[in-house]
């Protein structure tokens, strides 16, 4: 069935290394997305018309443009139009952060506006000042709403990074193709074993994170 090819040489390690590349790119993008997303989400609650207009256009672009298209624009377009020579890895991080920031900012905005006004009012009525209200009442509630959703963003980011092979980054799918190609004669069925393995690898990477996100969401649901 083509699984034997995994045992040859360091093929299994190479596949894991490829997954590592995908994970590395997604982790950097997640950190950037969460940081920028929190800032943008907070800006969006200010109800400034300029910020609102810009962020709406930005969110709509992200909503309807496939990441693959964005990836092509940044990787091929930036070189051609701006004369910048971006590496594939940098392009990927830019695109995934562009996407992730939009997602995160919308979550942050939702969490912020979702806190009922009475929570602020009753804290003030207890004599807390603005800072105390935020530290003891508002932020803990927001954090509880946001953490499961941010964790969920990580799994989506990991899945999305599979796209980077399309701009030539040697990640797990590309490594898989290389192994299949190199063993074409000795293991003609390697494609089944390798792609099944990659399927499982992605599942093993994402499933525990999804479970954690679901668990926390349930746990903190009032």
């Amino acid at each position, binding site marked *: 069935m083509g699984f034997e090819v995994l045992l040859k040489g360091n093929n299994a390690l190479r596949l894991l290394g490829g997954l590592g590349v995908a994970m590395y790119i997604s982790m950097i993008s997640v950190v950037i997305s969460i940081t920028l997303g929190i800032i943008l989400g907070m800006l969006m609650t200010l109800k400034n018309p300029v910020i609102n207009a810009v962020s709406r256009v930005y969110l709509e672009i992200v909503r309807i443009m*496939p990441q693959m*298209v964005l990836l092509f624009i940044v990787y091929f*377009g930036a070189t051609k*139009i701006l004369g910048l020579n971006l590496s594939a890895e940098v392009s990927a991080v830019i695109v995934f952060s562009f996407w992730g920031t939009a997602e995160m900012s919308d979550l942050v905005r939702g969490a912020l506006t979702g806190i009922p006004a009475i929570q602020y009012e009753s804290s003030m009525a207890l004599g807390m000042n603005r800072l105390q209200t935020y530290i003891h009442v508002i932020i803990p509630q927001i954090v509880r709403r946001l953490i499961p959703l941010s964790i969920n963003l990580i799994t989506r980011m990991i*899945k999305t990074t599979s*796209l980077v092979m399309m701009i030539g980054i040697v990640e797990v799918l590309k490594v898989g193709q290389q192994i299949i190609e190199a063993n074409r004669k000795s293991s003609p069925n390697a494609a089944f074993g390798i*792609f099944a393995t*990659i399927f499982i690898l992605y599942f093993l990477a994402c499933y525990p994170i999804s479970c954690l996100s679901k668990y926390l969401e349930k746990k903190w649901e009032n």
Partner: protein
Amino acid sequence: MDFEVIVSYLPLYIKAFMLTIKIGWIGIALSLGIGVFCAFVLHFRIPVLSAIVKVYVELFRNTPLLVQLFFVYFGLPKIGISISAEACGAIGLGLLGGSYMTESFRSGLDAVPVSQTESALALGMRKGQLFSNVILPQAVTLSVPAVVANLIFLLKETSVFSAISLMDLMFTAKDLIGLYYNTTECLFMLVIFYVVMLLPVSILGTVIEKKTRFKMFGD
């Protein structure tokens, strides 16, 4: 930007656009069918099938479409299951989408309050009448926002079809860039065609969401 180039590429893009739409919507139709079926299985806790559906949903929600397509298109033929790129795209999208639609429909069904069931039962309604007259219409309304989000997500996912050599928009753009280096024009057209494909769905989706929400909850 060279408009002559754009005009000369137009027929190729239109062809690719039609193919992308065709496979995309076939996949979406499949995903809706799978989603409704699996949601019923989970909602009515049908033994054995429920367990299978759960595994299916988790497997497909936690892996990228690209990997699913590679497995089906390049992997399965090695054990004797060969399908065309087009069928593979539609089935892949259908399976991925089915796992998302299942979750959306199921949470819609579960979100109908128990008290609605009880008051319908108290009126003497039979199980079937209760389901078709009371539960289902409300569940559909409740799942609209999630289903719209899925539609947009799935249409965007069609962009990975090029990886299995389907001559879709991505493939065409990449091909033309490789052949003639008219990068700016090619990317511009790519964006325009995706906007044409997705903006109406996005706008219409928002309108439908508002309308159904209003009908149900009045806000």
